[in-house]
């Protein structure tokens, strides 16, 4: 999972940490202190997950989350080491594997994980981590060819036209059950949104439903030919969700630093620039705390 370069960085960091700790026999340093001392912030992102985190043709991990990780690290005055992780069966598993405990196969945890839901009810159930720094609101949308109709009712449309979805997702399950299964036979499953959008471009499906950012990125330079809009999902309590970061419970100073750094990125439009770079529309998280960067760089917060 680590690239050689990362391991070297860690080896150097560990060496410096050992020196530091033998010199200072005081209280245990905080996670933030340790990160600053070793000069590396390790950030977990999902692998194979365009446009958020994926490998480019040279094998580097790039994407929205990767760029945010580098920007956060820069704000903290350190370098980012990106840990690209596989998704387990649930978000709880991912938090356990990557944030607070580590996978039982070994490998330890990252300092911060990105692309973590920012949701009060979910946070209550997961008290081993601190949820901070909401940075984006994801939304389920549908993409169809332009000109299909101004007053398109997607659910009605897809009772006779095929719609592509990513297997084993909210959109998948919703469309399979919508209208008591009326459109079930029109749902075509793909292993990711990229493949579903390719099928749309090739005319194999009439639409694709799924997260906005993934669909927009996959449409790429053909985006102008397609209409992308939110899909009404009657009977479902949510069709959008906020995303933020997670750090291990107990690392309060790190959590605060990440919160502050993310706020600055948001305020300075760095986040929207990153999203634009990956051809995705930036949407503010709904639960953003009102934050202002004072002229002296201080962050003030009003809830």
């Amino acid at each position, binding site marked *: *999972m*680590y690239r050689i370069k990362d391991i070297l960085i860690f080896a150097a960091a560990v060496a410096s940490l050992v020196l530091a700790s033998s010199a200072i026999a005081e209280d245990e340093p905080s996670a933030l202190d340790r990160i600053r001392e070793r000069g590396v912030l390790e950030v977990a992102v*999902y*692998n194979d*997950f365009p446009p958020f985190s994926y490998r480019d043709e040279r094998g580097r991990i790039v994407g929205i989350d990767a760029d945010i990780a580098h920007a956060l690290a820069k704000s903290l005055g350190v370098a980012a080491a990106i840990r690209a*992780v*596989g*998704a*387990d*069966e*649930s*978000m709880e598993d*991912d938090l356990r594997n990557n944030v607070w405990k580590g*996978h*039982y*196969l070994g*490998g330890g945890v990252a300092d911060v994980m990105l*692309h*973590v*839901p920012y*949701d009060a*009810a*979910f946070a209550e159930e997961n008290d081993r981590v601190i949820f901070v720094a909401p940075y984006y609101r*994801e939304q389920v949308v549908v993409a169809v060819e332009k000109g299909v109709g101004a007053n398109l009712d997607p659910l009605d449309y897809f009772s006779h036209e095929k719609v592509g979805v990513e*297997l*084993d*997702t*909210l959109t*998948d*399950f*919703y469309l*399979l*059950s*919508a209208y008591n*299964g009326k459109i*079930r*036979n*029109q*749902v*075509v*499953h793909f*292993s990711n949104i990229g493949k579903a959008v390719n099928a749309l471009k090739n005319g194999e499906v009439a639409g694709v439903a799924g*997260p906005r950012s993934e669909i927009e990125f996959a449409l790429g330079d053909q985006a102008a030919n397609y209409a992308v809009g939110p899909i009404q999902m009657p*009977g*479902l*309590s*949510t069709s*959008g*969700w906020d*995303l933020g970061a997670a750090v291990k419970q107990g690392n309060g100073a790190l959590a605060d630093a990440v919160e502050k750094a993310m706020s600055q990125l948001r305020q300075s439009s760095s986040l929207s620039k990153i999203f634009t770079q990956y051809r995705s529309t930036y949407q503010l998280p709904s639960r953003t705390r009102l934050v202002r960067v004072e002229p002296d760089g201080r962050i003030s917060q009003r809830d």
Partner: protein
Amino acid sequence: MMISLHRKRVLLKAVAISGISAAVTFTGTANARTTQAEIDGDAASTQDVLSWGMGQQGQRYSPLKKINTDNVKKLVPAWSFSFGGEKQRGQEAQPVIKDGKMFVTASYSRLYAIDTKTGQELWQYDHRLPDGILPCCDVVNRGAALYDDLVIFGTLDARIIALHQDTGKVVWRAKIDDYKAGYSFTAAPLIVKDMVITGVSGGEFGVIGRVEARDAKTGKLRWIRPSVEGHMGHIWKGDKKMENGITGKTNATWPGDMWKTGGAATWQGGTYDHETDLIFYGTGNPAPWNAHLRPGDNLYSTSTLAIDPDTGKIVWHYQYTPNDGWDYDGVNELVSFNSGSDKLAGHADRNGFFYVLDRTNGKLKNAFPFVNRIDWAKGVDLKTGRPLETGVRPGDPTKSKDGKKGDVVFVAPSFLGAKNWMPMAYSPDTELFYVPANEWGMDLWNEPITYKKGAAYLGAGFTIKPLNDDYIGALRAVNPKTGKIVWEYKNNAPLWGGVMTTAGGLVFTGTPEGYLKAFDAKTGDELWKFQTGSGVVGCPVTWEQDGEQYIAVPSGWGGAVPLWGGDVAKKVKYLNQGGSLWVFKLSDV
């Protein structure tokens, strides 16, 4: 690959000295080859254990009776062997034995060759596992198969590896599938007609199950039979891959394109019956988990498939849990047995029922509960072969209007099953099956807002709960004709190890508390036990060597229970991990 270095050097030296053949230096037994005829006769032969199930029919019965109900109290350790390293976790393997060599697999896809007389290691193979594997259910391996001069086993990264029995060197290797897509392989391979038969593990990622046959000498594919209707099977004529007919009938029991990702993983080992010339392979639960989304029987999930080894075609099937909504995999083994002139087979399912099938055609002959509580069905209709459902099914989370946690449904058995992977045994002497059962249920509820890969998801929550205060595990002697439980042994922790029975009137099995135990096959009286130091979730075997009968079992607590077991996991938290093999024989004094 890593052979332990000093062994490697010794081997190289031995080869160099002999100059002509390494075989000469290996105590004169290295010329011995495991033939298909020997494998087919494994159940009756006492000098060796060549196959998973101690015979391909899977009875786990040995005709040996030197160790018997009268003298089993004198059973003492002959030797013990440590799997070493820092890698422990669940040790679920069944050893195989041939000509003074034992081959046993351990967690993390390791394989050891051991001198059965001394307990000394001959060589060790540590499969190099790639980063980023996410095995669902612990890093176990269930054993190897012997064929010719090869020992063949599967790995967590979905490879199948054939090693030379003498050296541990790789002779051939084949990729079953892409571990990055969720595939792995942990079952013991089956050898049939000079072919190695395997399935695929990884039922939780929308993979498609299939049974594959490869030339056991080269690893070249001979046929592939998918386990979900609509998928094309293939057969190789020489090097030419040819279509071999679709499994079932497309969209007969699945809506839309859902058969394409329908699950039914074949993650446990199969059995083979030479009398009917059929391979019996079990299939897992259908995908996705929410049964409301896939109305229909969802064939051939939760079934046993009977496959013709020559053609790779399904001869018959029997489905245990149509439109499964409780995660009751149908992968448990089908064990062949004869009753008079009737060719029958027994299967103890996750869903709590014991099934007796006519193994010539898959027709249901008998079905009865082997656990005390079954909520999802009140029985099985012997005429139609279908369950009589009670209607206790989890609700549909997409129907939740308010986004709140849905009603909690309690249902027994739990998804870990009235019996899980651990193989049962059948004694032709007592005509009883010995079933390692567990009494537990589960709370199921819908969670309209859960998250998966950072995205909102419609999930289900579950917690496994014991049904009784004093025990979860129950080793039960089951009469397949009457459906009566003849005797039972209750165990505090869930039973998770294989069972063996012998002509000595004994039944052996292990417990998570660390004991290997011997019971009277007729009465269930506990006659002997030995504390191995860690939980026993492996499969015991027995063989004869220099006129003495030996018994071996791996020890090392782990498997799915501590990872998935809910309230039960809390109950077994105190159990220590381990990694060793214990061998016993009768005391000389």
